């Protein structure tokens, strides 16, 4: 059944506290039993400056933003057109502005949305310590059907430190907003949530990533701050300390990747998190981890590239560097999270994969997942605990072979401290003992072993999430990955609701490729569209390189921070089934 949801944006310049307002609203909605998704966008200023909180609420789990917003609540208009492209409005959208700040700028009006005014600052001005953003929240709550008590609880909790006076002032402004909403045009209202037994969490993608790391068994993290990955580290630092782990802030990314190589060589599962520019600096040492067979996890929270690009906006354009970026032939693992909650699953799985195969596993998430907060069903417990095959006892008279050529390709690893198994791990090509060798036979044998261990591994069904429309797969496939999955999933649902048949394949295991599994998934499919958020269609090109795609395959790609919403994907589905 089609998702019944309401989408709105709160925007304004820094001091207006739009992000705080958005967070309060999300928390209140969560308390009211709804599901929610909140993303943020902000201007270049470090503090203050314009910002927007984009929210969507529903009584069921939410995978994606909608194609347009029902409501834009603008506390003021400052630089708001900078976000215009990221806030699609439709003819039935409603813009609510404060008349004290004048009219909505033309840049917002191309779709001819409805417009009205709400004197937020004037209303707030009448209340001691009243703030316009609380008035806005009151109006929004009334318009979307959010119970007032839900907000009361949240405000009490969040303003406790500031005292009862602050709480009362906020709630007074809130109620004034509720009252004022009576005169405003209407937007869709959500039903109150049916009390469900299902436990729900409120979590960001970056927090989920951090939790996945700890769940998987990581106890050493070294990293260098970078937007939009820093929150992973900020969550991890105190959390690791609680479970006996350590986080070190390194001098740069070259240091952080090498510190985790050292820690992991020491037997402690390790990871780092970064974004494109930092990943670039880690490339040489990722190759070292491949050659010396040191397990580790590197999370790349992608942002707009190339170069420093746009640090605060999302793009799926680090696929190439993640898959192909290393010099030489350096087989390794690349996995990608396809939703806020999947950040937890995929990262935890990555720790498991890295440890099991003694190789680096790169996890791709992006700003849109990492910095979004979602109210989600409680994630399942997972069995993926990093477990490394170790060598524990020396065999009398036999020199330990760190890089023994085994059938699985995995060579039991001796951890420093183990008597009788001392050896030197090496990034130079080596023989089975680890001694540097320039003989082609050693190179060949080690290359094959390193490839074998990751191609023969049993990845189970996790390589992709495959979803069929309610009436079965039909002959159309959407192939996608990462944060493009949400809109694709919603498009599929809508298509299904109108009787369409299609299959969604969201690839989680980007590398190594799984041609047999993909062939099975594409069985009976005659047309496919590949959906991604990159200017050059990196994912499409990679699919072409390694898979046999249906003859009629359409590449749908576009640079971030924009992407394909459900409607554009649905449109293509409809045109094919017309």
């Amino acid at each position: 059944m089609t998702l019944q949801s309401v989408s709105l944006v709160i925007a304004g310049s820094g001091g207006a506290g739009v992000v705080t307002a958005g967070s309060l609203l999300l928390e209140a909605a969560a308390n009211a039993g709804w599901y929610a998704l909140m993303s943020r966008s902000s201007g270049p200023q470090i503090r203050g400056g314009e910002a927007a909180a984009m929210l969507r609420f529903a009584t069921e789990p939410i995978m994606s933003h909608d194609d347009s917003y029902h409501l834009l609540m603008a506390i003021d208009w400052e630089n708001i057109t900078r976000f215009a492209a990221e806030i699609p409005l439709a003819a039935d959208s409603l813009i609510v502005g404060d008349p004290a700040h004048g009219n909505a700028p033309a840049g917002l009006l191309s779709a001819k949305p409805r417009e009205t005014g709400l004197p937020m600052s004037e209303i707030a001005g009448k209340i001691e310590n009243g703030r316009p953003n609380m008035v806005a929240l009151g109006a929004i709550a009334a318009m979307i059907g959010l119970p007032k008590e839900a907000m009361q609880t949240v405000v009490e909790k969040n303003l406790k430190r500031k005292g009862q006076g602050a709480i009362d002032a906020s709630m007074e402004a809130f109620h004034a907003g509720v009252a004022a909403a009576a005169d405003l045009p209407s937007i869709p209202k959500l039903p109150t949530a049916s009390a469900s037994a299902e436990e729900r969490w409120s979590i960001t993608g970056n927090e989920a990533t951090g939790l996945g790391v700890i769940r998987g068994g990581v106890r050493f993290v070294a990293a260098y701050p970078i937007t939009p990955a820093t929150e992973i580290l900020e969550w991890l630092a105190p959390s690791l300390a609680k479970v006996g782990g350590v986080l070190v802030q390194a001098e740069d990314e070259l240091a952080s990747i090498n510190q985790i190589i050292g820690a992991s060589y020491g037997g402690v599962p390790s990871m780092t998190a970064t974004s494109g520019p930092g990943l670039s600096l880690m490339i040489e040492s990722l190759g070292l981890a491949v050659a010396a067979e040191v397990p580790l996890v590197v999370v790349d929270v992608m942002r707009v590239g190339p170069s420093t690009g746009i640090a605060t906006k999302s793009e799926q354009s680090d696929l190439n560097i993640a898959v192909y970026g290393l010099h030489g032939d350096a087989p390794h693992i690349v996995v990608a999270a396809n939703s806020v909650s999947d950040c937890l699953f995929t990262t935890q799985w990555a720790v498991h994969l890295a440890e099991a195969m003694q190789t680096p596993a790169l996890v791709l998430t992006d700003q849109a997942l990492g910095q979004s907060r979602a109210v989600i069903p409680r994630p399942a417990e997972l069995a993926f605990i990093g477990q490394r095959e170790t060598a524990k006892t020396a065999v009398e008279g036999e020199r330990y072979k760190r890089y023994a050529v085994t059938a699985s390709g995995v060579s039991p690893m001796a951890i420093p401290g183990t008597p009788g198994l001392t050896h030197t791990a090496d990034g130079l090509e080596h023989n089975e003992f680890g001694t540097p060798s320039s003989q082609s036979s050693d190179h060949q044998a080690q290359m094959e072993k390193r490839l074998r261990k990751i191609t023969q591994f049993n990845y189970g069904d996790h390589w992709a999430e495959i979803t069929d429309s309610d009436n079965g797969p039909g002959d159309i496939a959407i192939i996608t990955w990462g944060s493009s999955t949400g809109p694709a999933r919603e498009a599929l649902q809508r298509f299904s609701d109108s009787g369409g048949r299609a299959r969604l394949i969201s690839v989680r295991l980007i590398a190594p490729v799984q041609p047999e599994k993909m062939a099975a998934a594409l069985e009976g499919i005659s047309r496919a569209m590949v959906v991604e958020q990159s200017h050059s269609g990196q994912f499409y090109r990679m699919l072409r390189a390694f898979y046999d795609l249906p003859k009629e395959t359409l590449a749908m790609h576009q640079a971030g921070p924009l992407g394909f919403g459900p409607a554009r994907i649905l449109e293509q589905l409809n045109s094919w089934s017309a």
Partner: protein
Amino acid sequence: MEAVARKFKPKDFKSELKPIWCPGCGDYTVLNALTRALAELELPPEEVAVVSGIGCSSRIPAYTSVYGFHGVHGRALPVATGLKLARPELTVLVTGGDGDGFSIGGNHFLHACRRNVDITYIVMDNQVYGMTKGQASPTTAPDWEGSKLTPEGTGINPFQPLVVGLASGANFIARVSSSDPVNMAQIIVEAIRHPGFSLVQVLSPCVTFRPEQAEWRDIVRTAVVDFTGDAARAARRLMTDDGFNVGKVLYKGERPPFRPEHEPTDGSIAELEARFAL
């Protein structure tokens, strides 16, 4: 099994591998002194790790019988830092060259001194890139014309590893000569014993690309004064010495080593998760 105190000889710390070094290379002596020091410290080989980058001198790990890690050029110090922080009970050493440590690895050198993790860094300074067949390193004199890359000399002030190490916070500083392996072993023992980041510069001639360094054995002299714990005083001394005062510890600091707490605490993952639950 009964715990028996094991006794070790220097040769117990040597592997069977034949070094790729040129006959006469100073690094042979460093390998000897290192194994002698480890024997004297009575450390079981499996509780020691030697980490290195790339260069002739960086080949040492595989020539020892302890745990070794031979990483990429210039990144040995962060590898060792991660290893020591994750496994504080191990004795962690770093060995390498002047190019590896002070050219490409310069930033990690600065921050390792500053961070003061309890590791010992032995730099075989031959004022040249041996492995890549003879280019100027940061410690090369500005008028050395032996490299085709800088045929008229580098024209650049040599890097002063001990002064910079001191200025950045190294907790133990010594200079030794590969012509005196016994003294070198002694100093390495002291360096390992001293808590925090210890820096040992070894004058280790490259007989192939700097044959004139054969003279070093005659030029070096034992430093006249004993070490100081006063950094400003040590700085003054080091900034005025000519680089050939060897055989003694030059500075010993008292800063406690960096060692973040990470004893398993009461906390559980369930507690972390509870904070997300609504």
